[in-house]
């Protein structure tokens, strides 16, 4: 073991993840009130209330089928692409109703980007992948600069700067996912949604993505869905635990928000017994 030189000046710098009071002092980015989602009449998620604050990482955890992926897709109206989905309740984005009639879903998706579970690079070159967003949105300014900036922010620039014209599908899984993050960053979003971004990756790539989240948190608001509790514990400031309620008569399953608090609280002294059971791994 090597000797450690401890710099005692660093003590104050490091945060363990923001405390709740610190989080709530920041501007609200999303304000969700009584949100429910149903697919062809079957309620998947019911009565969710929560606020997401600026420049924080918020994690949604819970067993499968609890509606956390459905919920995160409400934030950028990706549920619109599913014809059988019905969303009720209110989602306010910087105070404006996200589901109002005259809202431009293209603008929403530019500002609220998304990274998916399985990396989905386009079958084009690395450059064209990143440039796709700015091109379809007719963004001004140098495309080369945008691409470089985005790749730098996603901690991928050094690895691909000499092969921007190569196909994106030739990258490794971890690199592909960082490419997808860079792609989302290229359109200058405000919020980044991540739906289980590391679940298809190996542990080292996962750690890189988590480190990246810590860096990105300085400039963007991040919401992440994860089925890996420890990941939520490591990266999130606030954690929301969702669970499933089974209707005794109908046998239908609905997702509900059980507890939403600072990650520290959820993982040390959760208020709800269901939360305690889930995080300690004793969940049915």
């Amino acid at each position, binding site marked *: *073991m090597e*000797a*450690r030189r401890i710099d*005692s000046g660093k003590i104050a*710098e*490091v945060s363990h993840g923001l405390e709740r009071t610190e989080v709530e002092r920041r501007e609200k980015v999303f304000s969700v009130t009584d949100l429910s989602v149903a697919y062809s009449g079957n309620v998947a998620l019911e009565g969710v209330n929560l606020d997401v604050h600026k420049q924080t990482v918020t994690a949604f955890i819970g067993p499968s089928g609890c509606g956390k992926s459905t919920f995160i897709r409400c934030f950028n109206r990706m549920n619109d692409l599913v014809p059988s989905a019905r969303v009720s309740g209110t989602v306010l984005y910087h105070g404006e109703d996200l589901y109002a009639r005259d809202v431009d879903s293209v603008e929403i998706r530019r500002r609220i980007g998304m990274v998916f579970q399985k990396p989905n690079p386009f079958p084009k070159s690395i450059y064209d992948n990143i440039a796709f967003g700015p091109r379809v949105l007719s963004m001004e300014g140098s495309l080369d600069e945008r691409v470089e900036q985005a790749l730098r922010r996603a901690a991928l620039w050094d690895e691909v700067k000499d092969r921007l014209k190569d196909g994106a599908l030739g990258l490794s899984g971890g690199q592909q996912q960082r490419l997808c993050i860079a792609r989302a960053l290229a359109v200058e979003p405000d919020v980044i949604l991540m739906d289980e971004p590391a679940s298809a990756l190996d542990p080292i790539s996962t750690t890189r993505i988590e*480190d990246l989240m810590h860096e990105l948190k300085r400039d963007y608001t991040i919401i992440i869905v994860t089925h890996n509790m420890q990941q939520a*514990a490591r990266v999130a400031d606030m954690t929301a635990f969702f669970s499933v309620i089974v209707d005794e008569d109908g046998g239908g399953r609905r997702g509900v928000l059980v507890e939403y608090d600072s990650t*520290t609280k959820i*993982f040390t002294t959760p208020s709800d017994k269901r939360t305690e059971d889930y995080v300690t791994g004793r969940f049915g």
Partner: protein
Amino acid sequence: MRVEFQGELDALEAGFQETGEIVLRSIRAVADALRTQDVELCDEVIAFDDEIDDRYHGLEKQIELVLARQTPVAGDLRLVLALLHSGLHVERMGDQCVTIAKLTKLSAHLDTKQTVIESLVDMGERCEEMVRVSLDAFAARDVETARGLHGLDDLVDRANRQVFGEVLGYVHNPEALEWGMRQITVARCFERIGDNAVDIGEQTAFLVTGEFAEFTDASH
């Protein structure tokens, strides 16, 4: 990789070392107070113990958070556990200093015997050295040096027995006896500080080797 986590570990260790420095100052202060029979200095040491206790509880809380949020394993886990134990030892040392200070205050109005005082001051200086060594060995992850603490502790124990022997001689002088009894307790406190320093050395060995072993056995 895991930059945040590494930063948290570094912060924990830095906090521990800082508290160690504070306790070192307390030890030096009580040794000085003994030599000069300075009651005000004793009061300062007593007051300062609050800071030491707060720091220990802060360390404990931070360790709880690190365990809950970062799930450290292997070397990281041993470091966290070693810090938890060593932090407690440091806090105990602080308490010992408070006891010494209180006793010194209590017996300040009585006559002192120079030989005993010299022995006690000597014990204090050796303790200071032991604590210094234990903190440095921990920081350097130096098991050899940590094991050497056992030898230094022998010297402290010897001085303790010396004081005891001296005081036995005061049996015919009630005032001196009263003073002497108090000094026996002071010597005992120093001896406990030494033991705590050896314990920190054992934690260093645990941190590096992964095995916990007493440097001395209790039959000694």
